[in-house]
């Protein structure tokens, strides 16, 4: 039986309560009759022999590119860059796709007699990965062969000697990327294209770039003109990255792009109820739901976080493409859409969504209030093509406990951003103008980014810019079940129940609003007409 596509359910009296993610837990909420629930498609079947598929892709490149083996020659300087810990979500069961791909590339390199190979985690301005995270992403075989010899590096955007300026785009954008990558004879980039925004020229132009370069597209103006940033052809973020990518190619950097797509099989079987439509829950699903809910209720927050962070996703590979960046990316996008696209007719007055415990920036960490805002208004709000799921001036209701909690090692600048900047203003433009530079150049944050495991000082700003489109579009944002003080600091309204939140929303959008619920997990892309 082929997997069922996603669909839109209209809630009536016989509809069982709807599942909302709520951080390290969930809520069952009864949506008013007439509300629409958008369900994701079911997972596509996995490739039967992923390793063979990878090998095949490497030798049958897309676009204007020779097969990998033809690009490798003895004495060549080769760099393999790979996506960092922010992908995929949740982290996948071993072996990770990156391990499979990197091993295949290394085998090809060894076969071609290439000696000079360096692996680089494409951190952009993300935190450095820990040894355990690198080992998980690449597998012990690769890790032990490279790490002890200093051949497994992590991109350092703040190392003046480690980056090189390649020039300006015709829009005057600085292009500055990792020196080793730029000066290699071949740069292989290994992607995991979890959502439609990943990959393409963004991989190198952002993942291996410096703040000087990234700030040209990671800003309020760009984000407000990216509608959405999940739709590459209507995303200013991508347009800028494409300009940069073409300049990188023109500068002589030979990029061999490898992109992979995963199916939507996001959670292991004990959480299978999360991915099923509620009326299809089996007796086992119900029992699992109640048992897990009861257990979580009695678990302290720290332990709950540990339990959830240890979940490994059964994600399976559905496609792999290699070759020239743009050609590869178009093929990949088609595969992402094949799995994730759901057609939705028309916008609603109110958009509801449950937010999970994880986003790209709190793997093995704490989902702090800024990340909550970014996950809801940045990622989930932008999971559309065409028009947003909610009308302009509408209301977004998110469900998340939003604790006033931070990881001091991973998110030091977030703490100060929350305490100092958001206490003053929540306006993205004002924040950008007044505070960005001082945080971005703060030597202490730079030090922590380079030597510890901290996100760059400017990173919380990007999280806030990510929300800029939604903040501009929406009439109000309400958080159900969140820490009231933290929610208010974000400039949102706290509500203790969904019913209260809907009452509050009526003040903004009028009585009997139309409601659309974004049902997740797993993630999908709404094609809104």
């Amino acid at each position: 039986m082929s997997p069922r596509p996603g669909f839109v359910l209209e809630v009536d009296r016989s509809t069982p309560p709807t599942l909302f993610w709520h951080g390290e837990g969930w809520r069952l909420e009864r949506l008013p009759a007439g509300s629409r629930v958008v369900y994701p498609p079911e997972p596509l079947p996995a490739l039967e022999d992923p390793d063979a598929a990878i090998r095949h892709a490497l030798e049958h490149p897309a676009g204007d590119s020779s097969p990998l083996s033809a690009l490798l020659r003895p004495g060549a300087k080769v760099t393999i860059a790979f996506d960092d810990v922010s992908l995929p979500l949740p982290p996948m069961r071993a072996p990770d796709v990156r391990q499979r791909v990197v091993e295949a590339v290394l085998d090809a390199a060894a076969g071609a007699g290439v000696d000079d190979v360096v692996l680089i985690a494409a951190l952009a301005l993300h935190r450095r990965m820990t040894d355990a995270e690198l080992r998980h992403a690449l597998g012990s075989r690769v890790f032990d062969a490279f790490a002890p010899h200093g051949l497994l590096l992590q991109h350092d955007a703040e190392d003046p000697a480690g980056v090189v300026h390649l020039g300006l785009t015709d829009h005057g954008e600085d292009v500055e990327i990792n020196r080793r990558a730029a000066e290699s004879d071949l740069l292989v980039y290994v992607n995991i294209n979890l959502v439609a925004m990943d990959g393409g020229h963004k991989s190198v132009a952002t993942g291996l770039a410096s703040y000087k370069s990234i700030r040209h597209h990671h800003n309020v103006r760009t984000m407000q003109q990216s509608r959405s940033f999940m739709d590459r052809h209507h995303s200013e973020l991508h347009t800028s990255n494409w300009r940069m990518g073409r300049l990188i190619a023109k500068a002589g950097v030979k990029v061999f792009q490898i992109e992979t797509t995963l199916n939507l099989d996001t959670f292991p079987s004990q959480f299978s109820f999360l991915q099923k439509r509620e009326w299809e829950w089996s007796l086992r699903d119900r029992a699992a739901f109640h048992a897990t809910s009861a257990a979580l209720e009695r678990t302290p927050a720290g332990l709950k976080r540990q339990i959830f962070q240890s979940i490994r996703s059964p994600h399976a590979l559905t496609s792999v493409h290699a070759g020239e960046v743009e050609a590869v990316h178009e093929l990949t996008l088609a595969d992402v859409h094949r799995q994730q696209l759901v057609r939705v007719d028309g916008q609603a007055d109110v958009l509801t969504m449950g937010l999970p415990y994880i986003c790209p920036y709190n793997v093995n960490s704490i989902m702090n209030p800024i990340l909550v805002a970014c996950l809801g208004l940045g990622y989930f709000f932008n999971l559309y093509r065409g028009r947003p799921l909610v009308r302009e001036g509408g209301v977004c209701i998110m469900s998340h406990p939003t604790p006033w909690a931070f990881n001091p090692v991973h998110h030091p600048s977030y703490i100060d951003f929350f305490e100092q900047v958001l206490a003053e203003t929540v306006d993205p433009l004002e924040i950008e103008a007044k505070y960005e530079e001082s945080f971005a150049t703060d030597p202490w944050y730079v030090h922590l980014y380079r030597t510890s495991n901290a996100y760059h000082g400017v990173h919380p700003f990007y999280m806030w810019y990510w929300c800029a489109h939604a903040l501009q579009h929406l009439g109000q944002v309400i958080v159900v079940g969140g820490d009231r003080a933290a929610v208010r600091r974000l400039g949102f309204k706290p509500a203790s129940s969904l019913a209260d939140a809907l009452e509050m929303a009526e003040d903004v959008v009028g009585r009997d609003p139309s409601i659309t619920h974004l049902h997740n997990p797993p993630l999908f892309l709404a094609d809104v007409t």
Partner: protein
Amino acid sequence: MIADALAGKRIAVTGATGFLGTALVERLLRSVPGCEVVLLVRPGRRLDAAERTAREILRNDCFDRLRAELGDGFAGEVARRVTTIAGDVGTDGLGLDDQARALLASCDVVVHSAATVSFDAPLDGAVEVNLLGPSRVAAAMLDAARAYRPAARPLPHLVAVSTAYVNSGHHGDASEELVTQSRYLALPDWRGEVAAARRSRSDADAESRTPARLAELRKAARRELGAAGTALLAERTEKLRGEWVDDTLVELGRSRAQALGWPDAYAYTKSLGEMALGDSCEDLPVSIVRPSIVESALAEPRPGWIRGFRMAEPVIISYARGLLRQFPGVPEGVVDVIPVDLVVAAIIAVAAHGPEVAGGGDGCDPAVYQVASGVRNPFRYGTLVDLCEQWFTERPLYDAKGQPIVVPTWSFPGRGKVQGDLRRAAKGLQAIERIASMLPVRGALAERVSAVEEKRDLAERALGYVELYGAYTETEARFRVDRTLALYDSLDDTDRTDFCFDPAVVDWEHYVTEVHLPSVVAHARVRTSPGRRVTASREDRARAAILSSEPRCAVFDLEQTLVSSNVVESYAWLATRHLAPLARARLAVQLVAEGPRLLALDRRDRGDFLRSFYRRYEDAPAERVRDDAWELFGDLILTRSFPDGLQRVRDHRALGHKTLLITGALDFVVAPLAPLFDEIVCARLGELDGRFTGEMVATPPTGEARALLMERWAASFGLGKESTVAYADSTSDLPMLEAAGHPVAVNPEPKLSAVARKRGWPVELWQQTRGGPRRPLAVSTRRVGTRTPAPRAAAAGNPAPERGRLS
């Protein structure tokens, strides 16, 4: 007419800086325009006698009325009529020079109002001033008169101010007679008492220097300050010794007084003072004026005028603040209060009247005038308490949170019960305080512990009030005022209006509610309006001064000030980094078991502790430990850091201030903190063949050495004490905090919290981030394989190519 009688007279006054003396001088200048005033003033430590007159007497608001009346003429009037001579009633001959003696000889009246009015003054001081003072004044007058006064001229009139309470032991009528004539008093030989009091000072001093006593005092200092270093502890011990000697003499005074039938050392020394005066005045004409409890003015110079916080005031305010839950006393008993202007009027009337003709005996036979209200216009203690309760219920004081304070209702239990209750409360609180101060608590909890100390302090103060003043609410003596009233009756109508001293004119309800209480509340600087204070608190101002744009040198301690961790944890983390799980558990258990011993050693001597503890690093591979330390930084130091603290360091740097970290931690542990500080002073281990020797080659300073280091370091930037800021969490850093211009107590332990509260130092309660990981013991996750090099290590260009293969 009184003013006429005193016109052209020269009147000397002692004790003019006191409450009664100031009022007397003002009244003389204002209401007796024809007289001259000579003030005998003791030179102060900083101000000489004339300066004290200008600042402490004439600038008092008592003179506001006269100043307004005279306008620009005030200064001229004062210059014309007031002369100041330096003198001290505490020394024989009053310490007068010849010029002063001549001036004294030229006086017609001398009013001696100087006294130690504190009821709990050390015995020897009270004896010198109260007991010997009057006779010394008499002797000096006689001496000066013999030397400078024409024989024909009559001797000047000495009006000595005493107290009605010399007779407080009486039950029933206490008449206006000399103490020597009283049938109820057992009077000792005053000369013997003087000798004994003087001896007791040196006895107490000798006792305070015995080894046992010194050990006790040192222990007390240590209890208060902890391991604050030798110099500070010595200083504190010496201060406590001085206090102990004084306390002993206070206790001696009280017990000696009570043994002889007086309530306290004040009444006792005043009584003997009258005796001594009688023995030494020879043919000098003397009158004695004995007021009862002198309180704020009824009308002159203005209703409610008062100087200083006297006897009833602290009790009233403590009551209004809800601190005195009970106070002893007999509600139907009489509390003998007399407004100060009535006493002043009586003194002037006595001076104008001149000495009574001697009763025929040999030598002097002073006439006694009692100025008291108890017989003529009795004021019941119960009425006073009711009036106060009513008044403060209508006009409550407000607590720190702006909430009105409800005053307690007193039920008048016996003095013994009140004292017993308070004593038990104080003892209980002291016990709690002692136990709590031994607990390893910090921050907000420590603040609460030190609040116990404050409560204990209040309980002890309340006990003090009860012990001191309780007797005055229970006095059953009725002070007769027959002679005073006879004098009043002899006045004409003008004088009766201008110099009224008939206690019958006082309407007590009016006096308490309209005159006295408003004045007391205004003087006490208490909150009389609700709501939060809008003006910046002392702490806020201190904080603003710290983060100013002025140059500053900020010194930070590390453990518990910026990071909630310590050297033991760092060691545990590093040592377990490469161990197998079982060995790791064993080491953890071992360290936990050793905890108390290590803690005790650390408390005793930080330097010794570090020296012995760092031995454990012996033979550790230096390079590997250094490399691991970078991960320790993220996993332990940053995780346990206080973001507000790190932010403060960065705030200082943003303002261009210099920052210095002083810590006992090892160099490789604090190395990642380098970008925050201009300089780091820490411990360093010796190294041999790539392994640590376990011996410190650089010892971080502790105690006073830290203070010195801070001073020298600031001086290297040309900055002095006023520019230094010190952040620390424990009393072992007290020398550094004391030496800093801007000390800040961070997450203080209870002892430091108490010190900071007393000194008004800002206290910062910095915490770990909410939600940050917490582990009971810092054991690292096992490291397998080699860590990916951080940029600091991988600065070397391209890595060796031949190894880039999968095996």
